[in-house]
């Protein structure tokens, strides 16, 4: 199923006003509002946030990618434990993955010690967590579709052949 054009627009820029969206898609603002409200209600749209450059917006903050191996449980598999981990504020993303580990947990903290404390005191002390491997982020090249190439963005000529 192709992505709805309204949803596609919102995914590239959520800050369009309802009137702008309506104009771009030849809809009425009321139709736009109605569809967005329905998506917010059924969970298609989970939320809106600015995608920021962490070096400029959150200087000093650190992120880590943590590979977690779990013991699956009867009935629920990995779900219960994964949700328990995902609920922590420090966890930015949490995915079940195929391959050599079970969960990929993206954790954010204000410094290395903050992340290390979360891993040693919260994550690895849970029954069912067999092992963790923490990889700190060193540099970001692309985030949510946005490239981090401030210098390279060249101006287009105003008139070109």
């Amino acid at each position, binding site marked *: 199923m192709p992505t709805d054009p309204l949803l596609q627009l919102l995914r590239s820029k959520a800050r369009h006003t309802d009137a702008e969206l309506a104009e771009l898609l030849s809809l009425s603002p009321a139709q736009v509002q109605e569809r967005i409200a329905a998506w917010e209600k059924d969970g298609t749209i989970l939320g809106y946030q600015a995608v920021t450059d962490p070096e400029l917006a959150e200087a000093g903050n650190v992120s880590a990618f943590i590979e977690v191996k779990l013991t699956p449980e009867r009935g629920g598999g990995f779900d219960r434990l994964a949700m328990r981990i995902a*609920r*922590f504020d420090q966890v930015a993303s949490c995915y079940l993955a195929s391959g050599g580990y079970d969960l990929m947990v993206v954790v954010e903290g204000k410094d290395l010690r903050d992340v290390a404390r979360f891993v040693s005191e919260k994550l690895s002390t*849970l029954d069912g967590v067999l092992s963790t491997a923490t990889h700190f982020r060193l540099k970001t090249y692309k985030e949510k579709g946005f490239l981090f190439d401030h210098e390279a963005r060249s101006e287009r000529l105003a008139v070109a052949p």
Partner: protein
Amino acid sequence: MDYSSKIARHVAGIPRSGIRDFFELVQGREGVISLGVGEPDFVTPWHIREAAIYSLEKGQTTYTSNLGLLSLRKAISRYVGGFFDVSYDAATEVLVTVGVSEAIDLALRALLNPGEEVIYHEPCYVSYSPSIVMAYGKAVSVETCKEDGFSLKPEKLAAAITPQSRVLMLNFPTNPTGAVASQEDLEGIAKLCIEHDLIVLTDEIYSELRYDGVKHVSIASLPGMKERTILLHGFSKAFAMTGFRLGYACAPQPIIEAMMKIHQYSMLCAPIMSQNAALEALENGTPAMLEMRESYHHRRDFMVKRLNEIGLSCHTPGGAFYVFPDIRSTGLSSKEFATRLLEAENVAAVPGSAFGHSGEGFLRCCYATAFDDLRVAMDKMERFVGTL
């Protein structure tokens, strides 16, 4: 059987809570927007809930020391030292209780001989007067007014003091008015307490929820007051932990010892899983608490602005999560106003008279409710006031 002769007279004489009457009116109605709930609209932050789950998983299901886990009392002592600037010895001057409500009951029972007077400022939380009566004390209310921002003025307190006065109960920020006391008022009150040898019972449950960047000051931190003050605090409001039922009292050792005597026979100890959750709240809960406070602050500003626009004059409360608009301009009693507002617009707010005589003419609106609901509730209230 004639049960009226079986119920103790001092209990039978306690009137039903005005909040309960109103609650029954609201119940059974569909689609009500409620500004009547006196608790945070946030769920307890996950890391705190998780700490409780973890403690259960690890089999921590036993009694604790009557005073509470020493690790928690140490954390309380550190927190109170930092936040209120008063130091208490964790081993002997801190008692962990089942909510501040239990602590109030313990303190009053530990201090009062039958017939002795307890002064409290009104409008106030619904339990104060009944708690005093159940401890065989005599409840003496001092009315506060909108013109004073519902703070307790020392001159009014002075007029209520008699040779039988033993205890003064304070609650700033106040439920239901959101009132705070100025440093000057607190100093005046402290002076009177020393002069008349009163013990102060200060319910500080809303103390983290102070707005406009003002630092909260407790009477316990004023010179000469620690020795005559019982500082009561808990986790319900600041950390959104109402259901955990956890509070504490900090006071000089002989008073804590007396309160503990009652606590050990009536309650034994506070639940261990709640104590473990509270420990996590004190150690790691401040960032989440500050975020919640920020959110209340925005909502308070919105409510005060809208109520004044509607024509219901409303002072700007310095704390808690209540606004207390003046509805006297409508000519209705607070009960009539609340009942008719509910019937006409399905918006519930508690009549001020539920919090004492001096609450008559006012309405308690709790803004710990989703912002969108507050907006709709204010529009509905505006429409209702327009029909009067």
